[in-house]
């Protein structure tokens, strides 16, 4: 059972108590202590209900008026449907059908509104009623005592001029207001209670000079009208232009059902709303849009759109700003109070049983639990003396337990099966798997380190102890034999040969190539050959000098200064070679020392590459060798092209050897060792490295074999595991 907590002493009182049993103070501000309290079962709920009606916007007034009529015995319309309040229709609907209509289940989603409007079948009862044309009817009936301005609003074609409307607004009587209110649909009945709060904000917005200036031109009589209003803080009503704009805005709402859009339209277009309504809305624009208020405007607009004959009502309602509707509602409240106070002897209207039965349901809704009397004056605190404030303590006293609804979802077996099926489908997706282990490079580093150390260790051992276990190669490739034969034939000739040596290896491979080339250059030197070095890489000239110095040291009789010329670096790669093939005297005019090479004793009389007896290429890369073959070989005709290549380039050069573009070739340490075998060199430079080389090669092969087997087997196991 709910209790009332006294706002003054905090004591708990029974729900039916009017005054606190502890401090004897009134529990309700809006109850006149002098007036004899009406019986609880009649007045308490009515007071709440009235309060509810007060804070409802115009739509609610229909229900309020129905109650009032029950008090005054006044009938509103002859139509039975029309005097049945919407909430009653809802209760009936609830009884008929377990599943409530969406409109009552939750606040009307603005997005759904167009659907409502478009699909008549989905229209809520209240709209259907309107469509049946039972709304204008009271308008006609009430037409007798309808004020002039309201009569003028009979149809859209007879819209009164603004100046006709504005001054008359000040003369709105409760009755006329009631009549006006009757036309209003009870949409807000379904709206949350925040909506009136927003209206209050509008009312409390101070009317500063700026706002007055910004407002669309307000006639002087409007201020009189404001002065004649019961509350001084009541804002000025819109001018005719504004009311006209409101009508336009109603129309646009149909096309723009988005609540925020509607709100923005109202806010941004200062022509639509006066500044005083505009500003508070702005303050709320930042907050989440309140569907209640927006639905209200949108649905009004929908009314206007649904049926042409509803236009007058819609327009009259739309023409009246919210605060004015609020004002009408208050008038009803005041009137009811006045009647209860002024005529105590009057027989209190009987409360219908069905209405009494449904009351807790109403009380359950939070918005119903807070009766707000706009007339109440704040007695204490910093806001003392202000009227129409939200009564904090009043609200506290009105809390009641919310009803418990069954949350059981009724699903058919078929639906359950589908749900289970769906669950099984997404179960893998929802399961959080273990994160993939980050690839660790440590094993690789350890392997690299250990392999490196072992390899270096073995090579060092072989170099230091030089056991001579490795047998010199007896298999000599045919191209090496051709190389050897060509060299021997040329050096054996009567006139010492002049050889163009293309030094085309990088310092990185000088360890391999200078070692192999040294023995070859020695043999050329032994035949007193003239050597002209040319290089395609930047380090070439320096490497050439180094090679000549090394080889020359082993052939003391050879006069390197006279027989060797270093033509230096040929920039441009293949193009430089093409230029060399076309005209060597222009491509490499001078030596690295700046001497005019082609006037020197060695190269005297030479004008073409073909004048050389042989071209020897010391190379470590396939591409430059290809360039030599492509650019120079065609220009030298039958002059042999002999190649000393690195082991890395040899397989790629084999096609050129086979095609005969390369006359003879020595490749790698193996080829060098084979060549030394052919020349019968006793202390060849390769011989000193041979043990280390063979040991290293076999060790690498062993490592590779072990690694391949190990990882290969692991792969097979992994595959079988997967399978």
């Amino acid at each position: 059972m709910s209790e009332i907590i006294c706002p003054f002493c905090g004591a708990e009182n029974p729900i039916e108590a009017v005054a606190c049993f502890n401090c004897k103070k009134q529990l309700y501000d809006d109850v006149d202590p002098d007036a004899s309290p009406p019986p609880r079962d009649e007045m308490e709920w009515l007071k709440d209900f009235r309060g509810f009606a007060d804070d409802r916007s115009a739509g609610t007034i229909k229900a309020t008026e129905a109650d009032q009529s029950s008090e005054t015995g006044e009938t509103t319309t002859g139509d039975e449907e029309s005097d049945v309040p919407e909430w009653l229709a809802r209760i009936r609907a609830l009884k008929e059908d377990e599943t409530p209509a969406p409109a009552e289940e939750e606040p009307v989603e603005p997005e759904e509104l167009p659907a409502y409007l478009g699909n008549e079948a989905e229209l809520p009862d209240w709209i259907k009623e309107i469509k049946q044309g039972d709304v204008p009817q009271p308008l006609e009936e009430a037409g007798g005592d309808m004020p002039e301005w309201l009569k003028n609003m009979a149809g859209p074609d007879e819209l009164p001029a603004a100046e006709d409307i504005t001054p008359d607004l000040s003369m709105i009587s409760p009755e006329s207001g009631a009549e006006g209110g009757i036309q209003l649909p009870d949409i807000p009945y379904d709206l949350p209670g925040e909506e009136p709060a927003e209206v209050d904000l509008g009312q409390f917005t101070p009317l500063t000079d700026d706002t007055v200036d910004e407002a669309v031109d307000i006639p002087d009589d409007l201020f009189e009208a404001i002065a004649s209003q019961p509350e001084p803080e009541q804002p000025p009503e819109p001018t005719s232009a504004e009311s006209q704009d409101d009508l336009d805005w109603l129309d646009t709402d149909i096309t723009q059902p988005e609540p925020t859009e509607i709100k923005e339209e109202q806010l941004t277009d200062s022509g639509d709303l006066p500044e005083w309504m505009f500003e508070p809305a702005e303050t709320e624009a930042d907050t989440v849009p309140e569907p209640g208020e927006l639905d209200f405007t949108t649905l009004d607009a929908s009314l206007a759109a649904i049926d042409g004959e509803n236009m007058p009502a819609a327009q009259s309602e739309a023409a009246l700003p919210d605060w004015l509707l609020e004002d009408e509602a208050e008038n009803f409240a005041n009137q009811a109070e006045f009647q209860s106070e002024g005529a105590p002897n009057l027989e209190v209207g009987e409360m219908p049983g069905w209405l009494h039965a449904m009351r807790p349901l109403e009380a359950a809704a939070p918005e119903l639990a807070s009766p707000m009397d706009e007339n109440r004056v704040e007695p204490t605190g910093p806001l003392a003396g202000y009227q129409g404030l939200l009564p904090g303590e009043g609200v506290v006293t009105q809390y009641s337990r919310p009803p418990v609804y069954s949350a059981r979802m009724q699903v058919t077996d078929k639906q359950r099966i589908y749900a289970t099926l769906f669950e099984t489908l997404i179960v893998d997706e929802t399961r959080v798997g273990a994160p993939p282990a980050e690839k660790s490079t440590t094993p690789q580093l350890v392997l690299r380190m250990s392999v490196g150390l072992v390899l270096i260790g073995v090579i060092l051992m072989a170099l230091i102890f030089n056991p001579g276990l490795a047998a010199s190669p007896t298999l000599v490739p045919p191209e090496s034999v051709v190389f050897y034969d060509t060299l021997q034939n040329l050096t054996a000739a009567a006139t010492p040969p002049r050889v163009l040596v293309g030094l085309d290896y990088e310092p990185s491979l000088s360890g391999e190539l200078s070692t192999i080339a040294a023995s070859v250059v020695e043999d050329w030197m032994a035949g007193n050959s003239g050597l002209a070095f040319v290089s395609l890489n930047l380090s070439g000239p320096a490497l050439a000098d180094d090679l000549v110095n090394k080889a020359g040291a082993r052939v003391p009789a050879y006069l390197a200064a006279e027989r060797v010329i270093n033509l230096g670096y040929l920039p441009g790669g293949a193009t430089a070679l093409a230029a060399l093939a076309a005209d060597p005297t222009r491509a490499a005019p001078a030596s690295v020392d700046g001497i005019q090479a082609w006037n020197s004793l060695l190269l005297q009389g030479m004008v073409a590459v073909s004048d050389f007896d042989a071209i020897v290429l010391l190379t470590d890369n396939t591409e430059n060798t290809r360039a030599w073959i492509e650019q120079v070989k065609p220009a030298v005709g039958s002059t042999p092209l002999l190649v000393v290549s690195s082991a890395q380039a040899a397989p790629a050069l084999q096609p050129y050897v086979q095609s005969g573009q390369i006359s003879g070739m020595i490749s790698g340490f193996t080829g060098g060792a084979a060549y030394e075998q052919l020349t019968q060199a006793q202390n060849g430079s390769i011989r000193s490295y041979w043990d280390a080389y063979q040991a290293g090669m076999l060790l690498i092969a062993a490592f590779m074999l072990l690694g391949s087997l190990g990882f290969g087997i692991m792969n097979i196991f992994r595959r079988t595991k997967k399978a």
Partner: protein
Amino acid sequence: MRAPLSTAIAIAAGGLTLIGLLIPADPLLSIRIRLVEWAVALAGVAGLVAILHLLSVHWRKLTARRNKNFNSAFLLIAFIITFITGILLKPSHPTMQKIVTHIQVPIEASLMGVLAISLTVAAIRLFQRRGGWMSVLFAISALVFLVIGSGFLSASANIPVLKDVLAAVIALPIAGARGILLGVALGSLTTGLRVLLGSDRPYSG
């Protein structure tokens, strides 16, 4: 079309050079030689410009507010010393020779030595990296040629069958190499022609 002048220059210079290469007869030959000489000179200038750009990049790294890279300072110092020494002494001076033979050669040859170890590790991990029968063939081929390259089989060179088998095996890579070279030549042909047709314009920046 972007950079029409540059495109015209590229197409004209390239076309003349190509025709001069294929039909080495005057005046095409002399035009080609001239164009190639200009290109070589420009390549040299481009090299210097790129080196200056390299220095500017490392200068920026050195003077950057965050993540300063002090190694860049050593790069700049090493460049300045070498460049000034070279300009003053000329490349043929023994000191410049020493810079190559005692600085460049040790560093580059040592890096090549490190490569031997890196490749060995890569060969060990080959099947860990990727399986497939192509990798198996690659590994077998590499093993066989490592053994052949080591000269280890030379001892048994007297066996006639082995000699013939080795000769045949050594010749096998020629086929694949030739196929790859021919394919690369076709690729080079079409890629070069795209530039000569003005379809690819990497110079239009």
